């Protein structure tokens, strides 16, 4: 009874955490300042007034 309560609670939380994690893009990739710089450059290149 106690065993199952504890196992159920912790495993449920781990499953919920895993579910929340797959919906987070920053799990695999964080926006770094290099990316921001690169994004800025490419947008400038794409613009007409650049």
């Amino acid at each position, binding site marked *: 009874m*106690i*065993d*199952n*309560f*504890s*196992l*159920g*609670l*912790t*495993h449920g*939380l*781990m*499953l919920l*955490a*895993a*579910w*929340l*994690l*797959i919906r*987070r893009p*920053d*799990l*695999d*990739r*964080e926006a*770094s*300042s*290099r990316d921001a*710089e690169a994004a800025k450059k490419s947008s400038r290149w794409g613009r007409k007034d650049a």
Partner: protein
Amino acid sequence: MRDLAFLAFLGAIFALGFRRPFLFVLTYVYIDIVSPQRLTYLLLNAVPISLIAVGLAIVAWAAVDDKKDVRLAPRQGLILILLLYCWYTTGHADFPVDAVFKWEWVWKALAFAIFLPLTLRTKLRIESLLLFMILSAASIIIVGGIKTIGSGGGYGQLNLMVENNSGLYEGSTISMVAIAIIPIILWFTKFGTIFVPDWRVKTFGFALVFACLLIPIGTSTRTGLVCIALLIILMLRDTKRRVVYLSLIGMVGLAAVPFLPSTFTERMGTIKTYQADASASTRIEVWKWTIAYAKDHPFGGGFEAYRQNTIRYDTVKVEGEANNATLDKTLQVDSGRAYHSAYFEMLGEQGYPGLAIWLMIHIGGLFRMEVLRRRYARAEGDEAWIAPLAAALQNAHFVYLLGAAFIAIAFQPFVYMLIGAQIGLDTYLARKRTDSNWRPIMRRRPPPLKAAQA
């Protein structure tokens, strides 16, 4: 029924892993800590789930993970050296068969500690690793906590779901781990992002801390009590209102005494009268034996070298009152006594070089976390989480190193995951620093040129 639940859980988490391969790393962490194959009888015992998880984790990392700017920390190199050194001593062990038995799990723990930081490229990954470690340990700690409230427990009495006490299911080890993770649980109640700290997370966190504190009581392990005392002192450093903190701890401590089970108070009483206690006396004798052994075998005797020891010692019992006291000495002879200390475990099994490398790995961890604590002490905004996490990991490590003085847990896989998290945090921040330094250099260049022209 339980088998089916475990199978569904593992199936679901493996399936999610195919969406986000980093989850395979977390799955391995979970399997290694909880060992679900030991909690079920039929299904999981036939399939090497641990091997599948680690295999998928490595393949996924090698095949799809971003390996740009991968950094190796010096401590990963040290762990590799220790791994190779242990491999060598296993080949020349005094007890070759037994040594291979221990080597088989030790190398996995060390190899995983080298691999783990490579995958920890984002803050969220470090957080999710720690969350899985805590929740996995919590599955044992919550059971222990509730049963302690229900029955009071006792040394070797508390039923932690499995019969054989190995891994985290062993009483002393789980009490050390339970105390060591308290600072990390508290970090989650402030800085977690997977479960944002609302009243539910805080309630769960504090209840879990309470359960952690009950584990040393439930298992009646003296090591756990010593670890609690150390943690109270360590946490003083980050407390703003120290007098309030100390008086609160004192009050809670005093209030708790009447509720402590007699099995616990009796056993804790033996800390003072350790000379009359066989468990404590044998330790000291085994430690003496190990030092003498290392004199003849400075490169250690390989894993399980303690099996050759024979120790003779007297337990001293004082009987009667102050002036009439008589000393009652009893000679005890014992052989094949385990080290009961990670430091002597390293000295006896891996000799002085092994002990030195091992100490460098651990002291290096304390040192690096100290560096991060200071470097980010005043950081705010999206860097406010760093110093408290470094502090939590450092405190956890201190608790381990104290607990390790009384338990032979030199290669406890949970601790090497903690070290993996430390290295991951360290390399992640180093990457971030070079990343943020990169831009100012580009921008700063023009002004000096102008100045030169003027």
